[in-house]
């Protein structure tokens, strides 16, 4: 993965994901970026193997009477990229709040 090609918004989204915001809506809320930026960026990050997407277990969602959601996890390469992005954009760490568990 070429780090030079990671845009500021992609770095922000990667940072949000590495802080535990794993759904598209949560990432939008945490970063303040519009959905037209967040969802295509998630696709690009997944194509570049910096994040991977999985589906929630169907049983878990059914038990809570809601549809299963697609969530995103940062890969090992993604973690390295997020770290490099934080070093490159030091203010990035302050832009996304830590997710409360």
């Amino acid at each position, binding site marked *: 993965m070429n780090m030079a090609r990671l845009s500021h918004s992609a770095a922000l989204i990667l940072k949000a994901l590495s802080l535990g915001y794993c759904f*598209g*809506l949560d990432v*939008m809320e945490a970063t303040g970026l*519009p959905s037209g930026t967040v*969802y*295509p960026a998630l*696709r690009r990050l997944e194509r570049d193997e910096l994040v991977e997407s999985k589906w929630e277990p169907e049983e878990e*969602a*059914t038990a809570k009477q*809601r549809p299963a959601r697609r969530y995103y996890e940062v890969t090992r390469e993604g973690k390295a990229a997020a770290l490099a992005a934080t070093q490159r954009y030091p203010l990035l760490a302050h832009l996304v709040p830590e997710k409360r568990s």
Partner: protein
Amino acid sequence: MTPVGALALPWFDRNLLRAVEKIVPADDRAEWSRTWRAELWHMHHRARRAKNLGITIDLSIGLICDALWLRTDRWGRALHGTPTLCLGSIAGLCLLATLFELALNGSWRAFEHSSRGQFERSLFAAVLVIFVSFATASRGHIDQGSTSKGICGLKRQMFFAAKSALVLLLAFLLSTDICRPIHALFPNTADALQLLMFVPFALLGLRWAFGDQERRCKQCLRSLAGPARVGRPSHNLLEWNGTELACKQGHGLLSVPEMETSWCDSSRWVELNPAWE
């Protein structure tokens, strides 16, 4: 099992999903639809967002952007390195240059009138440029083994002819675009300058066309990928030293020597056994 009614989406969302999913490539459609049904459902069922029209509109834009991204990414992957993309890109540049020329001239008639003489002179210069380009071009693109015959060979020659013609046209349009602003004040100087600019543009363009042709698969005409260094420079006269490029479709390998030697003076196209594909 979750009751169907509990997971239902509002009318607007359902219809938007139905309309936009046609943009998404067919094999991604089911997963895309499932993803967005879940996202929209969760948006509507978050109490603090229930009456937020802004987020509904924003998410609708995201949904459309996501579908468009999937479609353009698919097109991008399908067209990457293809002769269609190559010819389309040069034709697009020609169109842009023509539109710029039209904007400078004001009308098609004025453009036609002012460019006729320049076109005739450039056509004459183009013959000389083609002759010089063929005389000085690397012969590597000709050493293509058995693929130089038959339909493959014909297709390749047609592609090269079309590419060269478009490159020459682009060189002409660029040179006229650059000289047009001074044409009204100094018509003779502008004409001479246009011809002087056309020649290097055309030479560079044809040089690129030869190089591009050499670095394409001899069967499918896609750009070769994955350049790999083979050998060591210090062994140049003893063994193979150069770069190898491969066709992504598995048709063959192109070996480009680092320097011309008596035993290896041109690029070599090595066809792979079709049984390996």
